[in-house]
């Protein structure tokens, strides 16, 4: 039943784009139809997911006559939890798109966008319930390729082409790694069905490690493998960025979880490796984010950071599994999965907000913006909620999932074995939280507060209704989970049990205590809100009729907007701490001559992995290939010689050496 709902939802979503293609005569209507179809499909899918969260595990199977292939589906609580963002975010995004990327004005490119947008959604849903390798891979690649098309929406722009290609290459390499991964698993287990692979009780060797990290890490954007992510997210339309960073990355996490779940007792090393990778991603992700000037690139790097946090929780869960500690599994996995959901919510919200700003001002350069809170009050409030949530501050949802991960580290702290060392994840998490808060203080403060720093956005207006609605939906999600985390704990409990293949009873202890703590969190959050409300009410009464003047400039009487602190200067002290990881590029035009005409200084921090490592390496190999091609003179005698030489070589190989 639940599975049927999910699959129908997936199909409906996947086909939703046909509406846009079919009714091209009446674009506005076409887009409404598409959106309606997608939202309806998402609704069905969410119903199915909720049913699966409370109901039993459902699986279905049908023949598919391709080599090694079958249409095998399985919907367990873990899949169900991942299905929530898979359906929710694209639905919100398509509503957002009504105003942000209207078919009426964008025409064909909007049609293409809608078609593949639906396809991505459907593919991700199928991927989440796939129960056999080949189906998984097929859905995976459909997702990746449709993702490529929607990133390429504005394909006439140079940097869009570039980042889309980087994305495509990374995605394909990842897929190839997954080919190898599943081929190995399949050959070891003698079947490509996940159930059979899990039943084979394999223990992963280093080769499987590597393929696992390469295949899924590339998609998830774990730190060394994140290089494709900032460009792709920055150059896609904002609701696409929201879906990609909110959901598509999580498919990497999902696959990682799924496959790691096949190993009954992974070695401790695996858990610690994952933990380490998570730490690196989290810290460096937020560090790079701090150094960005482009609003969307900044958000993209925060995705790397949050993937890192999720991976920390995942690592704890793996450690718990190796050490046979169900509570650790519960807390770690619970934290990870909840953070997956939370990040989808607030990152979607933030990208929507960024899109609104971009549309209103025509720039994503943080240092050119300012004072938008007055022009777009509602967008500001919603964006602020997202910012508080992503900084892991109470009383919003970001805090709850991070708190669960902290609980995991505390649980590990209690153990007397080497496990206890994993507690060092906690200070890392604290550092990351602090940096994230700093980074979003910068974003909110510079973009929305103060006064405009450039002509951009002088005539900014509030975002369109559909965009605000979409943001409001996600913001509501953030607030609800933040205020009432208790309701979601049981779902996490079941998901963790399903992942570890344990009897839920074993995990019920930590689940119950977490639920009761969640109650107290609710209480304190309400107390906080009550206090704020009371004080605010009192202040509101007092502030009426207060005198208004210039900002106190410490005696300077003529302040101009240009004198305000910029994002770069705000973040400088912190980015200095990470100078060792950055390779900043500066364009300096110093003043020259006795009467300097004009001078300028610009600097940006490119992605170290992509711009400093990968691209030079590729350039070098291309040059090498060029050299080797020189050997190929177009002389026909040479070609004949090749034939002769090959003959001689083969003969001697056969008769002398073989």
């Amino acid at each position, binding site marked *: 039943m639940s599975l049927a709902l999910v699959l129908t939802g997936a199909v409906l979503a996947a086909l939703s784009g046909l509406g846009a293609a079919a009714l091209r005569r009446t674009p506005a209507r076409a887009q409404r139809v598409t959106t309606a179809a997608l939202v309806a499909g998402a609704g069905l899918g969410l119903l199915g997911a909720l049913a699966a969260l409370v109901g039993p595990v459902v699986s279905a199977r049908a023949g598919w006559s391709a080599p090694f292939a079958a249409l095998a589906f399985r919907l367990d609580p873990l899949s169900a939890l991942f299905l929530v963002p898979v359906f929710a975010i694209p639905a919100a995004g398509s509503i957002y798109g009504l105003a942000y990327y209207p078919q009426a004005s964008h025409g064909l490119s909007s049609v293409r966008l809608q078609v593949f947008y639906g396809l991505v959604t459907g593919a991700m849903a199928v991927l989440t319930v796939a129960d056999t390798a080949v189906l998984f891979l097929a859905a995976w690649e459909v997702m990746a390729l449709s993702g490529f098309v929607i990133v390429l929406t504005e394909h006439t722009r140079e940097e869009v082409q570039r980042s889309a290609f980087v994305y495509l290459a990374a995605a394909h390499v990842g897929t190839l790694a997954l080919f190898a991964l599943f081929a190995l698993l399949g050959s070891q287990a003698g079947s490509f069905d996940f159930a059979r692979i899990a039943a084979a009780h394999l223990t992963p060797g280093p080769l499987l490690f590597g393929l696992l990290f390469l295949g899924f890490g590339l998609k998830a954007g774990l730190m060394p493998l994140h290089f494709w992510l900032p460009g792709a997210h920055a150059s896609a339309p904002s609701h696409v960025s929201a879906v990609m960073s909110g959901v598509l990355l999580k498919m990497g996490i999902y696959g990682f979880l799924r496959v790691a779940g096949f190993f009954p007792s992974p070695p401790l090393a695996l858990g610690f490796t994952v933990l380490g990778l998570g730490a690196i991603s989290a810290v460096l992700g937020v560090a790079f984010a701090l150094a960005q000037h482009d609003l969307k690139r900044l958000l993209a790097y925060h995705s790397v950071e949050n993937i890192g946090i999720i991976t920390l929780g995942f690592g704890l869960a793996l450690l718990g599994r190796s050490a046979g500690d169900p509570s650790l599994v519960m807390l770690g996995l619970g934290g990870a999965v909840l953070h997956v959901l939370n990040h989808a919510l607030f990152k979607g919200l933030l990208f929507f907000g960024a899109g609104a700003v971009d549309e209103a001002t025509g720039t994503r350069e943080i240092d050119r913006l300012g004072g938008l809170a007055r022009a777009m009050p509602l967008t500001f409030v919603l964006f602020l909620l997202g910012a508080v949530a992503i900084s892991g501050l109470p009383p919003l949802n970001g805090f709850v999932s991070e708190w669960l991960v902290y609980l995991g580290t505390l649980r590990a702290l209690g153990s007397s074995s080497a496990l206890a060392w994993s507690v060092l994840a906690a200070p890392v998490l604290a550092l990351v939280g602090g940096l994230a808060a700093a980074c979003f203080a910068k974003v909110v403060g510079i973009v929305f507060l103060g006064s405009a720093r450039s002509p951009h956005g002088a005539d900014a207006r509030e975002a369109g209704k559909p965009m605000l609605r979409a943001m409001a939906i996600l913001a509501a999600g953030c607030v609800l989970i933040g205020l009432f985390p208790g309701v979601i704990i049981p779902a996490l409990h079941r998901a963790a049990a399903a992942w570890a293949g344990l009897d839920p009873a074993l995990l019920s202890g930590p689940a119950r205590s977490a639920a009761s703590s969640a109650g107290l969190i609710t209480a304190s959050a309400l107390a906080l809100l009550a206090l704020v409300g009371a004080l605010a009410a009192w202040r509101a009464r007092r502030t009426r009729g207060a005198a208004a003047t210039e900002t106190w400039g410490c005696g300077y009487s003529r302040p101009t907007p240009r004198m305000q602190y910029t994002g770069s200067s705000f973040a400088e002290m912190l980015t200095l701490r990470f100078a060792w990881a950055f390779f900043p590029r500066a364009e300096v035009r110093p003043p020259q001559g006795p009467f300097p005409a004009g001078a300028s200084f610009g600097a940006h921090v490119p992605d170290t992995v992509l711009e400093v490592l990968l691209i030079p390496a590729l350039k070098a190999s291309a040059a090498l290939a060029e050299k080797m*091609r020189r050997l*190929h*003179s*177009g*002389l*026909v*005698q040479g070609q*004949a*010689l090749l034939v*002769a030489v090959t003959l001689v070589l083969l003969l001697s190989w056969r*008769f002398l050496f073989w």
Partner: protein
Amino acid sequence: MPAWSEIVLILVVVIDFVLLASSRLRAVIRGAAMQGALLSLLPLFMAGRAELGHVLLLSLGALLVKGIAIPWLLLWAIREAAIRREVEPLVGFVPSLVLGALGVGLAFALSSAMPLPAPERHGFLVPTSLSTVFTGLLLVVSRRKAVSQVIGFLVLENGVFVFGLLLSDFMPAMVEAGVLLDLFAAVFVMGIVMFDINREFSSLDTEKLSALKD
């Protein structure tokens, strides 16, 4: 009678050397023609159990094609395209001779290492054929002019033909027919192509044919 065939075969190898050594295009072509004519004698000498009609047909065909038609075609081509008479080797004559000698030695060694499955009468065929094939390859690779490449291919096919004789008594005629036919066809087409090359480039120097590269 085997003696005769052995003499012929030795002559064929000698002609290989001549082809490698001679610097005049016409001389090379005549040499190839000579070789073809000689080969056309072989079936007659070796006509064992196989019926005479078939043998006559074979040797006549060989004579016509290898000894007359193609050499004539080549000479005609040279006249038509007013090709200079030098061979213009990429690899000098002496080195090519040495290489050829090496090849012949290799061929003999190889064929001695590969015993004939049936107690055949002429164990001399295999080395001759292999060394002729090698000479052909050498000519194709080491000569600059398109014509000399055609000649090289011709020689190579001669070598193959020699080997085919080993099988002539039990192999269906189709194979030999195939040899003659498409040897003819191949060279013929090459001839046509060459004329077009001449029109395009007003020379038969294949080094002009190296525009296509990466």
